[in-house]
């Protein structure tokens, strides 16, 4: 089959690779009909997430048709011919984490738990196409994928919704939604979202659906801010104004009640010297993150507010404003999305027309053009927000 693979730092390559086979009894093989490039793929391509190998198949947002099921998958759960969206975290459904609906912390699905344990203290779930730290599972930017624990994760789509309407249930829509849900939103809340990429856009839409009084988008790309504006959100361009001052202006000096960091480890910054400081530390690997958005969210949030982190962080950061966090009674909440928990309720919201996931799609390319897709997405060329690949 054809698959998009990691080929060293800042390089992906579409290659011919063997077709996937059933390895465990509860596996299914899915023929992929739509897949996407995610912002967190860029951390892998850029080389900031360790343990990538030349030839690793990328991609963790995909959907398709089940063409084979293992002997351990009950027929009432999944059959050949089912149309499914596959969640990015691989969860077994039987461990303590899964029982607590913490699917991205599944205790069984990562065969390389020993590596993850060294990095994170405790292991995390296996993730498709997302380094060997998260299991070394082949990803979904391919014609076919092997899906472990197929009786737990994949969501059957039984209505005639299009691929583009449901594809993002695999990651970015639930991730954005969880970012807003962790904010415990009240009807009086002003919610500020750092990053107007696809996850940020969905965090904004979710905050509004959950009843926020006002939603503010922070980014520097005018086309992304315009996209947020068209969806009815207020915007701040951090290249043009001082973010904290503007936020205070917009909130009567209080600061946003809830702040969502939808940026993560490769944040850019309006001030050159702080950006340079983080770049140098990241370059010599003395910190893995450029945590600028997180710092700014903590410093801007109103006292007693919640800072919700859905941007991806990989290892260690410094200059963390612990004083602001502690002295001003802030709550910090975070997590890789527990996608399985949100798929069904969000599918219903899509069916009811409360959220339109297709609004972030700007590019549709054949799988064979994945390299170009990564290039325009990474470099924000051609007003690229989200790329969908068709195998």
């Amino acid at each position, binding site marked *: 089959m054809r698959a998009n693979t990691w080929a060293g730092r800042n390089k992906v390559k579409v290659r011919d*690779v063997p077709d996937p086979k059933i390895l465990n009894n509860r596996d299914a093989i899915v023929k992929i009909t739509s897949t996407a490039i995610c912002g967190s793929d860029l951390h892998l391509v850029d080389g900031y997430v360790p343990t990538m190998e030349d030839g690793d198949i990328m991609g963790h947002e995909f959907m398709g048709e089940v063409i084979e099921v293992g002997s351990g998958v009950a027929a009432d759960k999944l059959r050949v011919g089912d149309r499914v969206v596959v969640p990015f975290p691989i969860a077994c459904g039987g461990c*303590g984490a899964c*029982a607590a609906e913490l699917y991205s912390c599944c*205790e069984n699905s990562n065969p390389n738990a020993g590596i993850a344990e060294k990095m994170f203290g405790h292991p995390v779930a296996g993730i498709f196409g997302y380094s*060997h730290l998260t*299991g070394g*599972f082949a990803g979904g930017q391919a014609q076919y994928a092997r899906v472990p*624990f197929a009786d737990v994760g994949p969501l059957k789509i039984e209505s005639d919704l299009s691929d583009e309407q449901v594809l993002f249930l695999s990651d970015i829509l639930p991730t954005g939604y969880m970012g807003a849900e962790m904010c415990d939103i009240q009807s009086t809340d002003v919610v500020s979202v750092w990053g107007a990429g696809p996850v940020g856009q969905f965090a904004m839409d979710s905050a509004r659906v959950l009843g926020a009084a006002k939603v503010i988008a922070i980014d520097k790309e005018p086309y992304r801010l315009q996209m947020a504006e068209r969806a009815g959100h207020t915007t701040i361009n951090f290249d043009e104004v001082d973010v904290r001052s503007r936020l205070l202006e917009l909130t009567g000096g209080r600061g946003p009640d809830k702040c969502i960091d939808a940026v993560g480890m490769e944040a850019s910054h309006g001030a050159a010297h702080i950006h340079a400081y983080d770049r140098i530390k990241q370059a010599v690997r003395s910190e893995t993150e450029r945590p600028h958005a997180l710092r700014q969210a903590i410093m801007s949030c109103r006292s007693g507010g919640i800072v919700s982190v859905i941007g991806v962080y990989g290892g260690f950061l410094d200059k963390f404003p612990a004083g602001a966090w502690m002295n001003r009674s802030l709550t910090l909440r975070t997590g890789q999305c527990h996608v399985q928990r949100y798929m069904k309720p969000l599918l219903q919201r899509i069916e009811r027309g409360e959220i339109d996931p297709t609004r972030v799609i700007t590019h549709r390319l054949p799988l064979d053009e994945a390299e170009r897709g990564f290039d325009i997405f990474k470099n924000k060329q051609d007003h690229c927000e989200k790329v969908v690949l068709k195998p």
Partner: protein
Amino acid sequence: MSLGLGVAQLAAPDTVRRISGVDDSSTSRAVVPLVGARELVHAAGLLTSRRKNVWTWTRVVGDAVDLASLGVAIARRGGRRRRRLLGVTGAVLGITVLDVLTAVQATRAKERGSVPAVRGTHKGGPMELTATTTVRKPPSEVYAFWRDLGNLPTFMAHLQEVRTTGDRTSHWAATAPFGKNVEWDAEIVDEVTGEKIAWRSARNADVPNAGTVWFVPAPDGASTEVHVVLTYDIPGGAVGKAVARYFGEEPHQQLDDDLRRLKQVLETGEVVRSDGAPWGKRARKEFPQRPAQPLSDAEIEKGADA
């Protein structure tokens, strides 16, 4: 500190030269950034390498070079410059003393940190390993699975077969390096149904070993804490070396991984496989892995030993 010095020497070499009193020579124009670059190498090495002790000693060597060049500079200068140079030399001397102390300490820590029973196998001696996990099944079930000793090889990487030979006796076979097998008889010496199993190898075993596993109800009322203690009396000589190899560098890690697989088998039904680590319990080493892409028919044919 290497990082700070290195960045300063590279970013503002002239300031560094003025402060240290070598701003009058053209040689220093080349030397200062070089020293800066060297400092960054130390920093990178210290920050990324696991062998901190080796990298700290490279700093000490660097300090010695610095002191020598400062000595040459002092001999050739007088007045204010000489005074500044003496000051800088004092500081570098201080740093050198610190580096030597750190290096000595890092080297000692390294010696202490390695698992002595394994490193010291040429001398032989007992090695005790402990590990624990929580399985989301009741203690009676986890106990029953373990008590059926034939199940142990499904999750313990080294075990090839455990055959029950009597009510409390069994015969164990494990793979060892160079295609050799190690076999021994064992006997259950203590047992409390649903709570504890203790066993010990028979007297003539090549590698005398003993183990105890406790099954403790977890506070959640649904799970079992499994606590394992294993003791190996590692002999000296060639057998000892083979045993050490067989355990690898990280015997604790290997036992942890065994228990992780126990949890997988009990909670999900089998050992979880990925494309990067497709061989289940036979994937003993986490590195190096194969790429995360499906196996070819040829690779499947060759199997885990390829």
